[in-house]
């Protein structure tokens, strides 16, 4: 049996998967990225070895913003390509629109036949990203996932600014006015969902199936709110956060000379 390793070093978490040649998921790991991507990569190497998969011996592809810091990877592939491929593996289907809300950036990827056909990515600003959510959750003294859960019970409030800094001031003044926490949480998620949806609309053509990957895919409320905003059902699965790592492992299939 041949094995393939994919490592996705994101801005907050590093995700690692091992696939066998039938594309069955054998192992998945997640750890905080911390200060040094190189240290994280070495920690991953240790864990993989303990599990019996030596990345020096097996085809290994790195992706994510820290992809260049994985000394033992055979090659790097961008997170856009990897998320597209990984999502196609998870969700199947000829045509797929992948929404990945990452820590630093949000990507909308069109996938046809397992290959990326088009994509858009937010610019420097962090509106509509996991970072935005994190900052707002901090201000509200909540964990990001708790904020998302709370948002379902709120309503009636909105944040007008897209800029994280200004939006934070808005949240603070909402708190000052005595606005209920769930209403503020609602406004935060609503702001992210609107921004992401407007990005998604830039990708023309019929969306096919739409799915959510990345760290926020376990928040049911985010998925529901996106479904309403985009007027189509947005699919998500628990392995969604590993989509990038899965895509990297799939990219490792083309590396020759390691598995025999």
């Amino acid at each position, binding site marked *: 049996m041949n094995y393939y390793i994919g490592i996705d070093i994101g801005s907050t978490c590093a995700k690692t998967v091992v696939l066998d040649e039938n594309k069955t998921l054998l192992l998945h790991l997640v750890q905080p990225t911390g200060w040094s991507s190189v240290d994280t990569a070495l920690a991953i190497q240790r864990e993989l070895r303990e599990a019996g998969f030596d990345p020096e011996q097996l085809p290994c592809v790195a992706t994510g913003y820290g992809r260049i810091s994985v000394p033992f990877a055979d090659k790097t*592939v961008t997170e*856009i390509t990897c998320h597209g491929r990984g999502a196609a593996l998870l969700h199947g289907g000829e045509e797929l629109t992948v929404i990945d809300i990452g820590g630093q*950036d949000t990507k909308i990827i069109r996938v046809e036949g397992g*290959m*990326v056909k088009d*994509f858009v*990515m937010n*610019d*420097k600003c962090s509106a509509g990203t996991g970072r935005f959510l994190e900052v707002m959750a901090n201000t509200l003294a909540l964990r990001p996932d708790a904020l998302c859960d709370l948002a379902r019970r709120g309503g009636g409030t909105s944040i007008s600014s897209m800029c994280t800094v200004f939006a934070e001031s808005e949240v603070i003044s909402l708190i000052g006015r005595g606005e209920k926490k769930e209403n503020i949480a609602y406004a935060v998620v609503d702001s992210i969902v609107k921004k992401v949806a407007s990005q998604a609309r830039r990708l*023309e053509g019929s969306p096919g199936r739409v799915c959510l990957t990345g760290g926020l895919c376990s928040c049911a409320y985010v998925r529901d709110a996106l479904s309403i905003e985009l007027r189509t059902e947005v699919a998500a699965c628990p392995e969604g956060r590993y989509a990038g790592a899965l895509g990297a492992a799939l990219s490792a299939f083309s590396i020759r000379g390691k598995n025999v």
Partner: protein
Amino acid sequence: MSDYVQMWKDLGMDLETHDNLCQVLPTAFGDVYLSQENRPEGMNFWDFVVSEIHGIRPSELLEAQKKGQKVFGTFCVYVPDEVVIAANGIVTGLCGGSQFWVPGGEKVLPKSTCPLIKASVGARLDRTCPFFRIADMYVGETTCDGKKKAWEILGEDVPMYIMDLPQMKREKDIQKWAEEIAAFARKVEEFTGNAITPETLGAAIHTINEKRKALARMYEARKSKVLPISGKDALLVMQIAFFDDPVRCAQMTNKLCDELEQRIQDGVSVFPAGTKRILLTGTPLAIPNWKLHHIIETSGAAVVCEEMCTGTRYFENLVDESQTTLEGQFMALAQRYMKTNCACFTPNTGRIDDILRMAKEYQVDGVIDVNLKFCCLYDTEGYTVEKALKEAGIPVLGIETDYTDTDAEQLRTRVEAFVEMLG
């Protein structure tokens, strides 16, 4: 560049600030240019010009001024060099392409002005570029809103002449542009004290046509599957073309082209076979803006053509040389210049046709449409460009950026993903 200190002092430049620029430029150039492998030997000339960028050409211009010649600074490819040259004047481009000058521009301009305008105004007001000091007169045009208003601010500091560029391309607009060129000619005559005659204008038209042909020849070589020159190097030739003497520019470019054509015959390419070919479209890349070319050409792709003012818009279409009266020549000039397709015109379908044609001619795998931040014209037209390309089945990536390096890694991810997508 140290031997020029006295000259810079005499030009009233801010030497201390200027030193900072002199210190970073060689490193940047080394990293981006000298790190390339197997460059054409002919590029030595341009390497040399860059190494002395604020010295060698400025001192030539100063010598010419001592002999009574006037220097005109321009900001747009619609301003006809021919008219100035016919009156024994000299033209130099003045567009700023570095973040270095942007804060200077932001002192007087809104933040939401495009970096090209901010850098140009900053270079003048901060006194950190010799070309901006040397030019006796600046020639502006009514193209985009940002420039129109910037002229008013620059005009307080330096003599400014504005040409009124039409915004549409009907017959009467071409007629009007011919009249504008005639009026500009009168101004140039008055300012230089030299008469423009059909003979001098005819000679000037010929000179600039020869320069256009030489630059077009270089682009012709880039259509080859065997790529004899990198996009970065070709861009440098274009950027310097705005500053150099037109006869020398044509001569050196033709010499470079001899080498490029030989390389094609010998199958010598600067990129490995299978490197993805990219057409870059959009806003100008003024010197020393090499950011995107560098990112693209270190991400497994090559830039094979620039549909830009620092590219095809500068040299495509020649002026009819058969006219023998000034009136006929002004009209011939107007007709040629109005064939250029800038987003400041409406409608501007000619530009879409250009882009689709170039995508074929240069055998490109994909198009990257780049927009300088806050350029409303090209940003808006980007919608039409992307739509037309998608309809034609040509992959396209839209990018917005400025002169800072803060988005370099993000851009790299996008460009790499785009190249991966091209297969």
